[in-house]
């Protein structure tokens, strides 16, 4: 295809990296924010600003909460077409109850699945969700959008684009291209180790951009590779659903064998049976974990076939002390509390798989490693952003001479995805503090402000990058940096005004979720201001003669 191997690899790096880099930077940035998704939730939902709680007593707190639940309207509506006859007004046969928490969650998420009478597929359930205060069992407002864990987090793997799972596929392709870009980048680099520590801010803009691109790409190379790779592995079932399509018969054969082996019931007996104390089962599970030298809290608790003779309770450990995402599940007969099964120790392959997924999903308790992940993710963003800028810098004079707009378009898209993304994020947080408390569909409005602000930033980016076509610096960069600084400070101030939680108070109380989000935004504001100042300095004393001379030189 191209003249030689190295040029072919460079072509792949440049063009695939550019095209999917705009997706990757979104994935990296919101992935970085997702490291602290629970903390962002606290910032966005002030009612939930209290200390993380362990899994509460099932018998006293969870059971009454589950019993008062019903499936959501959306779930019932989605089911309507798959039922013979009308839907009942009240669903009274719960099949599955589940409660899930982590060491960072003050609130507890519950879900419940209900049997639907006359369903065409009797295994299909309708689902309800609730968030409770685990100290009292009281329901918390469920219409509040958990901006961190329900918007930023899914944004980083699905772009919140759910039509035909399109978002997942785009992100999947982007992750593959990330791997490709890393390998091709190493091939192009040549002096990987000799220039490992090289950054020359004093040299030409093109040179220092490339230095920074290489530096942030290479020092965090293991991080970049592992995160792109493990992200793909986590969603392997979506990208390559081999065992659910072509090999479905084999899969079913295995399921039958597996069910025989585990000995856990796979359907309701239809005979009611009262449940024994689940708290006693939890104590037994914790005793068994401690025996295996893995003492720990409960992360996930589930009841299958509620109040049925075949019912069983599964207790899973919260994986806070190791990378591998393992549950060490122990299953009890619900009516008697006897142990039905302990999950066997994982095989070697499972161990590797659990390590890889756990590495990405980070359920562990390690604040330093969390911050290092944020660092790695932001390095990825810098690497991508400098890649875009290098692309523009390398071509803008040539394009200006030839009257082409390629460099300008790329610069506008770079503004959109770098500073525009920050504008959108901050707009959402500002809207979160400004929208009235009882506004119907409040969460939707927050999302509209996110996408709306991003669109505006994009429009601004395209309008204010015209000088790039004349080989100059786009004013859009500086203006959006200023916008970011102003909005970040606004968000922090609004948090103070609307909740009274100013930094002095949150820092004094050591309430890090809110203090951390505020400090992060303020740091961002300072960096944005510094950047704007530097861009302003570059802008002013730029005599036309110089640019012409440079253009001639190029």
């Amino acid at each position, binding site marked *: 295809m191209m003249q030689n191997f190295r*040029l072919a690899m460079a072509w792949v790096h440049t063009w695939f990296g550019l095209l999917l880099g705009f997706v990757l930077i979104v994935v990296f940035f919101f992935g970085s924010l997702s490291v602290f998704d629970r903390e962002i939730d606290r910032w966005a939902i002030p009612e939930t600003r209290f200390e993380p709680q362990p899994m509460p007593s099932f018998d006293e707190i969870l059971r009454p909460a589950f019993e008062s639940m019903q499936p959501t309207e959306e779930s019932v509506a989605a089911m309507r077409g798959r039922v013979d006859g009308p839907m009942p007004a009240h669903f009274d046969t719960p099949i599955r109850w589940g409660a899930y928490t982590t060491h960072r969650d003050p609130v507890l998420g519950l879900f419940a699945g209900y049997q639907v009478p006359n369903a065409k597929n009797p295994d299909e359930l309708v689902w309800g969700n609730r968030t409770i205060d685990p100290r009292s069992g009281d329901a918390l407002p469920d219409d509040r959008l958990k901006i961190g864990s329900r918007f930023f987090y899914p944004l980083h793997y699905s772009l919140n684009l759910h039509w035909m799972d399109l978002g997942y596929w785009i992100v999947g392709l982007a992750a*593959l291209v990330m791997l490709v870009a890393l390998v091709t980048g190493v091939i192009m680099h040549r002096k990987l180790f000799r220039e490992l520590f090289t950054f020359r801010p004093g040299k030409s803009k093109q040179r220092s951009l490339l230095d920074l691109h290489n530096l942030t790409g290479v020092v965090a190379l293991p991080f970049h590779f592992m995160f792109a790779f493990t992200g793909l*592995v986590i969603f*392997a079932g979506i990208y390559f659903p081999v065992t659910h399509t072509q*090999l479905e*018969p084999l899969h079913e054969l295995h399921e039958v064998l597996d069910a025989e082996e585990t000995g856990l019931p796979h359907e309701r007996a239809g005979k009611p049976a009262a449940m024994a104390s689940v708290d006693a089962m939890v104590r037994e599970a914790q005793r068994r974990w401690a025996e295996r030298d893995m003492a720990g809290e409960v992360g996930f608790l589930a009841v299958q076939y509620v109040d049925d003779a075949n019912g069983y309770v599964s207790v899973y450990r919260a994986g806070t002390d190791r990378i591998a995402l393992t549950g060490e599940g122990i299953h009890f007969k619900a009516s008697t509390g006897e142990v039905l099964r302990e999950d066997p120790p994982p095989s070697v392959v499972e161990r590797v798989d659990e390590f890889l997924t756990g590495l990405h999903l980070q359920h562990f308790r390690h604040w330093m490693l969390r911050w290092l992940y944020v660092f790695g993710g932001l390095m990825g963003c810098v690497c991508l952003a400098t890649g875009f800028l290098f692309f523009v810098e390398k071509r803008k004079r040539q394009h200006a001479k030839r009257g082409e707009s390629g460099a300008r378009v790329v610069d506008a898209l770079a503004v959109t995805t770098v500073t525009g993304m920050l504008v959108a994020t901050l707009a959402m947080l500002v809207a979160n503090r400004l929208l009235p408390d009882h506004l119907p569909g409040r969460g939707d409005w927050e999302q509209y402000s996110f996408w709306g602000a991003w669109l505006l930033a994009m429009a601004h980016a395209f309008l204010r990058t015209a000088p790039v076509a004349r080989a100059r610096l786009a004013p859009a960069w500086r203006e959006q940096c200023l916008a970011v600084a102003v909005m970040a400070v606004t968000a922090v101030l609004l948090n103070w005004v609307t909740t009274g939680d100013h930094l002095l108070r949150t820092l004094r109380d050591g309430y890090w979720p809110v203090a951390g989000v505020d400090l992060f935004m303020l740091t961002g504001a300072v960096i944005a201001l510094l950047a704007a100042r530097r861009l302003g300095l570059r802008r002013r004393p730029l005599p036309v003669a110089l640019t012409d001379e440079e253009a001639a030189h190029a």
Partner: protein
Amino acid sequence: MASLTVSRFHLVSRVAAAVLGGYLFVWGAMALGVAGLFALGMSFHDAEHLCAMLAFLVYLVVFLWSFAAPDLRRVWLILAGGGALMSVLASLIQHALI
């Protein structure tokens, strides 16, 4: 950038070979891997997970190879043909097991 001495059609075909041809090849490899390893006595889940992990590394390699290989027809033949062949083999193994 890297000087392109090729037609637009060739370029599109090259990209399609890497993305789509690569996908077909990896699909086939994964199907054959799962069915084959299961037939050899590995547990189904282990075979599934192991192949999922290897799949993306294989994808990475064939993706790069599709741009590095000189003969594009050969790339298509190996990726699409090989992928189809492996898928058929996987189905045959499955048929024999059930």
